[in-house]
């Protein structure tokens, strides 16, 4: 399983902060995973259509759409930060 964490506006749109996705043995490209996320949470379609406006992480390290996600990974989909 891949654990996907959603934050702030993205979590509000999806109405959840966390979801689990099945993962094939060979893993899956982050790009493919985000398509599955949109399929499950259609409200995220517009936000995930512009992934360069989002910050992605795999296991708490910054990641890019062509990075590979494997079983057991934690993926975070985050809108632009606004701390401070």
């Amino acid at each position, binding site marked *: 399983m891949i654990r996907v964490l959603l934050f702030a506006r993205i979590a509000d749109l999806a109405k959840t902060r966390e979801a689990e996705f099945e993962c094939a043995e060979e893993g899956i490209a982050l790009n493919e995973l985000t398509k599955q996320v949109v399929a499950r949470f259609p409200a995220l379609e517009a936000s995930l259509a512009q992934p360069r406006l989002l910050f992605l992480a795999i296991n708490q390290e910054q990641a890019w759409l062509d990075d590979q996600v494997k079983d057991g990974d934690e993926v975070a989909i985050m809108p*632009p*930060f606004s*701390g*401070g």
Partner: protein
Amino acid sequence: MTKAVRIQTEDFSVEEETKLLHGGNGGMGGIVTFLGTARDFSKGKDVSRLEFEEYAGMAEKAMNSLRDTAMEEFDIIDMRIIHRIGTIQAGEQIVLILAGSAHRGAAFDACEWCIDTLKKTVPIWKKEITPSGESWVEEHP
């Protein structure tokens, strides 16, 4: 000893943190403080409170990495970074950055770099609650 980099819901004492930064170090000639506080307006609207959310673990890691980089890149003796999360009422303290150096220039530079970079690289989000509703902030003024 309280950690030099922290994310917490409770308020912090600028005086206490300043003492901890100085630590009796006779070589420290200047301490620059950035204290971020919650404004009661935004884009022409009254803001009654803010709500901060973090990516637990990654946010603290990113703040530790900020401090490490600042210690390497600027001629400072020490730095402390404290950020609150949860509900913060207008007027309350949000974030504290302290930089101490032998001469003031490096501390000013390190402090400014740190708050600018924190806003762009630390996974923390701010929601503004106004009388007409609430909205997430997604830009870095």
